[in-house]
């Protein structure tokens, strides 16, 4: 077990990504932040709070559950569906998908499928707190909190205050490997 980010690291990463989102999109006018269930949701809310602090205006923020869109349902343990809450029409906007860990890219593929059913954004960008590599699809992030080289046998765990009582990113051995 190794702690690769502590609470201060997570906070700095979120603040930097917020600035990068504003720089790249020249402001927050057309932006919709969509957190992917479950830990992308509090991260998106934090980004929205920082962006509002900087710009002085609220930014649209919602959640996306991709449980109905996965292509590997047969191979995963079931979990209850989370809420999909898209607060505004997506057509013509810039959607920033927010997830905690970017790994194979399959979650993001499913999220892109879900987005296509929800509207037609002008642009879709991707923010991840941790990029651990090992992509299986041609997907890349626009904003990364931290690049963490890993092996397949390791497990990356993101803990967030809203769900887990603390902020931390931990690498450990996969239990069943």
């Amino acid at each position, binding site marked *: 077990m190794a702690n690769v980010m502590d609470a201060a690291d997570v906070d700095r990463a979120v603040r930097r990504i917020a600035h990068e989102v504003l720089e790249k999109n020249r402001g927050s006018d057309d932006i919709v932040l969509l957190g992917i269930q479950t830990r992308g949701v509090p991260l998106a809310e934090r980004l929205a709070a920082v962006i509002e602090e900087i710009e002085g205006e609220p930014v649209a923020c919602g959640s996306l*559950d991709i*449980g*109905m*869109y*996965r292509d590997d*349902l*047969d*191979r*995963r*343990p*079931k979990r*209850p*569906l*989370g*809420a*999909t809450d898209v607060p505004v029409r997506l057509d013509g906007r810039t959607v920033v998908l927010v997830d905690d860990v970017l790994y194979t890219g399959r979650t993001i593929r499913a999220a892109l*499928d*879900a987005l296509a*059913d*929800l*509207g037609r954004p002008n642009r879709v960008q991707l923010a991840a707190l941790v990029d651990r590599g090992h992509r299986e699809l041609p997907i890349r992030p626009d904003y990364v909190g931290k690049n963490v080289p890993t092996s397949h046998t390791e497990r990356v765990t993101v803990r967030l205050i809203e769900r887990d009582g603390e902020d931390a990113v931990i690498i450990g051995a996969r239990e069943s490997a």
Partner: protein
Amino acid sequence: MNHFLTIEGLSKEDLDGLLDDADEFVEVLHRPIPKVPALRGKTVATMFFEASTRTKMSFEKAAKALSADTMSFSPGTSSLSKGESLKDTVLTIKAMGTDAMVVRHQSTGAPWRIAEWIDQPVLNGGDGAHQHPTQALLDSLTIRQHFGSLDGLKIGIVGDIRHSRVARSDAQAFSALGADVTMVAPRTLLPVDPSVFPAEVSENLDDVLGGLDVVYVLRVQAERGGASVFPSLPEYTARYGVTKERFARLNPDAIVLHPGPMNRGVEIEGAVADDPRALILDQVFNGVAVRMAVLFRLLGGEHDG
């Protein structure tokens, strides 16, 4: 969960979990494109050995909204009329390539029997006077949407309790979710032993009417002998019908549900059925969402991995 046959034995957590998923499918059904790819490549067979409009179409709509294919079976036009047995019928249709079967049958227990013959999920779409579990889910969802929770609600189920699989499944679900259920019916339409239901019993609708949050009106089921156990339909209506006059005496926040098909003017007056506090079409809409939740639970995971 390998099959979905009965409400009996499901806990509050089990039921709330399914209803929470159903809430998410309600959101899907409100989208411009009300369809998700969750069950792409799966085939759901609807095997209705007894007549049905809404349950069969609702299951088919639910399967299609999950991107599954559907196959349907109707006994009138099938080889059952040539004498093929139930088992051969089921195995034949399974051999065509199904992933799950929805079964309605006039005989109690038929879906359990079929579940022994095939190694894939069986969903009970109503068996005899026994169980109709997806109806109980859609009724529970409709009440939960309206009140936020069933906990502590007073629910009266009025009418032909004895012949009603809806009454049995609903009483079990409502009571597991924390509601106080009262069965209201003439003695001849109550079960021989009413203690099999987790509910109070009353033979007088006017006694309990004012205290109810939900009036659940059952259909008078002539096809199960329902009309032969009271003197006349007008007398039934006079004592147990939800008329405009009785509706006016309800608590102003109370709602009226009916599983359909309705006998307007018998168990429910037309003007009551059309009142905004009668959520009968919400029940129909929610039926699709709860059936999506059950199909997703049974087929959307590791079950036949």
